[in-house]
């Protein structure tokens, strides 16, 4: 009775239901396109938020790494920091070093740190076991 060969079923199958009108098709197209645009703009908003989050995380990471990096050993027993600094400011070679450092995009403090590192390594010690008091730059083998 219900097999595919049933004459009634064949008779029914021959009938073709009316297709949706062009108006219905265009309405569906409009609604689907609208939904697609909404989804796209939501995706874009999400992407922007993710990018901002990643940037902020990267910035925090960089700052953390910089703050945790070990400082080079500073020169010791060469007077108070302010005295050393005064000497350096007056030293034309130091000024030149700072200027050269700027061209390498180094700050004055970074130049100082480099100079300190060199001074620590190469300055000969005096009788008291402290580095010989002299212009720091005289001793640096550039």
């Amino acid at each position, binding site marked *: 009775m*219900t097999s595919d060969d049933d004459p*009634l079923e064949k008779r029914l*199958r021959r009938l073709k239901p009316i297709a949706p009108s062009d108006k219905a098709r265009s309405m*569906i197209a409009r609604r689907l396109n609208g939904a697609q645009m909404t989804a796209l703009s939501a995706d874009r908003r999400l992407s922007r938020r993710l990018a901002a989050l990643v940037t902020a995380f990267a910035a925090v990471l960089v700052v953390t790494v910089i703050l945790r990096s070990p400082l080079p050993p500073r020169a010791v027993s060469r007077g108070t920091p302010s005295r050393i600094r005064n000497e350096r400011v007056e030293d034309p070679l130091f000024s030149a070093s700072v200027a050269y450092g700027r061209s390498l995009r180094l700050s004055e403090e970074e130049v100082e740190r480099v100079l300190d590192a060199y001074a620590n390594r190469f300055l000969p010690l005096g009788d008291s076991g402290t580095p010989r008091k002299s212009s720091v730059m005289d001793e640096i083998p550039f």
Partner: protein
Amino acid sequence: MSDNGDWGEWLHRHGPALLLYARQWAPTLVDAEDLLQEAFVRFWQSRRSPEDPRPYLFACVRNCGIDGARARGARKKHERLAGTRQQHEVWFEARLERKETYETVQSALSRLPAEQREVVVLKIWGELTFEQIGRTMESSPNTAASRYRYALENLQRDLEWEDV
């Protein structure tokens, strides 16, 4: 193929059966097309969720039809209307040589109980299996098969009577 092309293909292939199915809950052709739009958009936005999208597509039409009827608070009225008022609207393509045929069949279909009419539409024009019909109508395949058998018996009797 792009997504837009895909939905056009789906609508081209299943549109007529979907519209006929939508008419089970809609009093007029315009209402049925509105229902179809809503259901098709819902289906398209979530078509990747179900394993078998075809029964899901018809289920979307069914759910939208039931929701719409409930919203209007007149589900039974519209089920009845689907079988009465739509007699004046054409369900099938009008071909002169078959005018009597489609009018007779439409008339016989509209007199079927709603569940039997649904199963016939899904089986004959939706080309779903009883398993898929069961999923669409949230019933067992056996229930779908028995409803279909009763529907064909009723149609057979009706059409024989009409032919006389």
